[in-house]
């Protein structure tokens, strides 16, 4: 007789509260009633039950385990690797992710990872069908669900709603142009930012340029209308157009730069610094008149609009209605002289004018930017107080720059400057300008290459493509003028 049979029966009787008479009587009972065989059968059944429970608890443990896998994004490579023994240490012998191919994903058994490029966004339940050690081939698979988030492709979330053509002061959503500026060429592209496309609002940036063959002068202007000003799209347009117009119809028509030019020419012979200083003062005075003119023109158009439609200017009056037209302005007028190119520049706001020498070994910023916390950020040509600010004197907004020759002259709005230069300090660094040129020439994520040797229409078209570069968090209107 197996001792286990005897101990089993003793425990059984004990559990039932029955006293064993004596061991011999019990042994005799076991022998005569075939108890040994029956106990063996019970013990075997118990083992089967235990085995089954172990299997069941493995299933439950796995089903209850919280599994978090990283989120995916539509059209972006996805890979989530489980640790090498993730499934085996949980006694999982067979498993598959059902239906993940619908999402564009698959499970790689070798790397133990979910991989692929997600196709649709949303919150999904990934179903794992699995078997644990001990389960037979014929049993059904068990199920476990894991929550899985696929983000939409951020680019697909942006809508492209055309601006309302019936609206007052409507203008084209995108505009580009190219042409010759004497010996140089110019390409300009101005595009409505994604944040404006998304809500169907207008492009607030603008530009204008012109070359005057008979005088040798060229002028380029760029303006960025304030996002918070309802008619800044018109403000920026007037600012640019009036700059060019005044330069042509008043400054050049009246030969107001003649004395300046004479002094520059004398200077190139005599090298008398005083002459140059005098010339600079004269040029500033002339440009100042242009800036005053632009401001007054903006005031005039604002006041006229106010008189016609006072309901468009809630809380404003005939004078401060110009606030609805708030726009920045930069311009550079230039001409080739004996001593090199002379640039007369002006800036209010945060659009930089940068120039890079022929050898691309040095760069200069031709204006300073109204940025930073000081004084409440940017300034506009529409603000009267820029003309008599003590902190930022008007005269400091003008610059006269002389350079032998140049490879590129850039005027850009902050929609380009913010993503490409990030901070003001970088505009002072030649290497950043060289990087910028490399970027234009193809060193960029989209592999958009602008070949400046190609016919100008082609270059202009390429610039339009380049302007669509993606930059997280930078969705402002973009305007870039390149003179080369």
């Amino acid at each position, binding site marked *: 007789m197996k001792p286990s049979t005897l101990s089993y029966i003793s425990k059984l009787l004990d559990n039932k509260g029955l006293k064993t008479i004596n061991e011999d009587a019990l042994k005799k009972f076991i022998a005569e009633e075939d108890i040994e065989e029956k106990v063996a059968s019970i013990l075997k059944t118990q083992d089967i039950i235990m085995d089954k429970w172990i299997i069941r608890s493995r299933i439950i443990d796995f089903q209850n385990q919280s599994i978090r896998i*990283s989120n995916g994004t539509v059209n972006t490579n996805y890979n989530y690797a489980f640790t090498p023994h993730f499934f085996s240490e949980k006694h999982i012998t067979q498993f598959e992710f059902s239906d993940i191919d619908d999402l564009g994903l698959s499970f790689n058994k070798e790397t133990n990872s979910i991989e692929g490029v997600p196709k649709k966004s949303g919150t999904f339940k990934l179903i794992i069908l699995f078997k644990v050690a001990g389960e037979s081939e014929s049993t059904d698979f068990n199920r476990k669900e894991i929550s899985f988030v696929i*983000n939409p492709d951020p680019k697909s979330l942006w809508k492209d709603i055309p601006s309302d053509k019936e609206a007052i002061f409507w203008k084209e959503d995108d505009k580009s142009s190219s042409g010759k500026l004497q010996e140089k060429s110019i390409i300009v592209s101005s595009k409505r930012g*994604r944040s404006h496309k*998304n809500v169907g609002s207008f492009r607030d940036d603008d530009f204008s340029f012109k070359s005057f063959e008979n005088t040798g002068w060229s002028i380029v202007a760029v303006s960025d209308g304030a996002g918070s000003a309802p008619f800044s799209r018109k403000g920026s347009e007037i600012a640019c157009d009036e700059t060019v117009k005044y330069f042509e119809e008043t400054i050049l028509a009246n030969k107001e730069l003649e004395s300046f030019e004479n002094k520059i020419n004398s200077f190139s012979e005599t090298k008398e610094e005083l002459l140059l200083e005098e010339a600079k003062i004269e040029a500033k005075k002339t440009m100042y008149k242009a800036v005053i003119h632009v401001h007054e023109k903006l005031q005039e158009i604002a006041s006229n609009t106010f008189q016609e439609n006072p309901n468009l200017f809630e809380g404003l009056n005939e004078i401060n209605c110009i606030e609805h037209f708030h726009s920045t302005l930069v311009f550079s007028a230039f001409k080739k002289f004996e001593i090199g190119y002379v640039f007369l520049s002006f800036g209010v706001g945060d659009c930089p004018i940068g120039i890079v020498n022929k050898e691309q070994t040095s760069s200069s910023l031709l204006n300073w930017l109204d940025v930073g916390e000081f004084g409440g*950020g940017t300034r506009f040509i529409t603000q009267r107080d820029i003309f008599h600010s003590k902190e930022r004197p008007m005269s400091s907004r003008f610059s006269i720059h002389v350079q032998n020759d140049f490879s590129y002259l850039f005027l850009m709005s902050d929609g380009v400057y913010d993503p490409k230069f990030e901070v003001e300090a970088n505009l002072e660094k030649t290497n950043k300008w060289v990087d910028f040129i490399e970027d234009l020439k193809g060193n960029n994520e989209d592999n958009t290459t602008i070949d400046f040797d190609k016919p100008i229409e082609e270059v202009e078209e390429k610039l339009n493509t380049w302007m669509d570069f993606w930059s997280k968090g*930078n969705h402002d209107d973009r305007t870039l003028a390149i003179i080369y």
Partner: protein
Amino acid sequence: MRRLPVYLLLDTSGSMMGEPIEAVKNGVQVMVSSLRQNPQAIETAFLSIITFDSVAKQIVPLTDLASFQVPDIKATGTTALGEALELVSSCINNEVTKTTTESKGDWKPLVFIMTDGVPTDNIQNGITAINKSRIAQIVACAAGNNADTSLLKTITESVVSLDTADGQSISKFFAWVTASIGVASTKVEESGKETSGMKELPPPPSELNIVL
């Protein structure tokens, strides 16, 4: 990339057990999925969750919306709001990048506080700490009658209250937080400025009373 950091300070004390805490969890879930559909928010808004019961814990560090995973939240213990305020200011110090001449830092953070009770710790040090932090805006929400709105007023000007801390009201609060984050992330991109007062946030729904 300039991030817009958003800190949610959520009361997980014992009194939140049951419907309120489930509503909070659901509120966070719905908020995140909704913000993921907003092109500006998904690119700029970063979210962190700090819970406070007997202790304050940052259960999710500042995370972009695309990678954000909604944590499991349980209600238990007392209301250590003071500790939560100190914690959020140290998190802001560690996680939010400051602007230098070399690079533009993050936008100033938005902080949303939701509580259904009275703090069981001293909040004075917490108030001192957050006053020293660079924060664009703090909005506190008193959920139900047991929350002390005048005490919340000592933390921030912007206090709203819910008549009851039930699922419906709490979900309305989260819907408003969602809209506020959407507006703030659009505004920073559009105008380059952070929001600075309640009037710049979307109007709260009728369930939310503005505490004057």
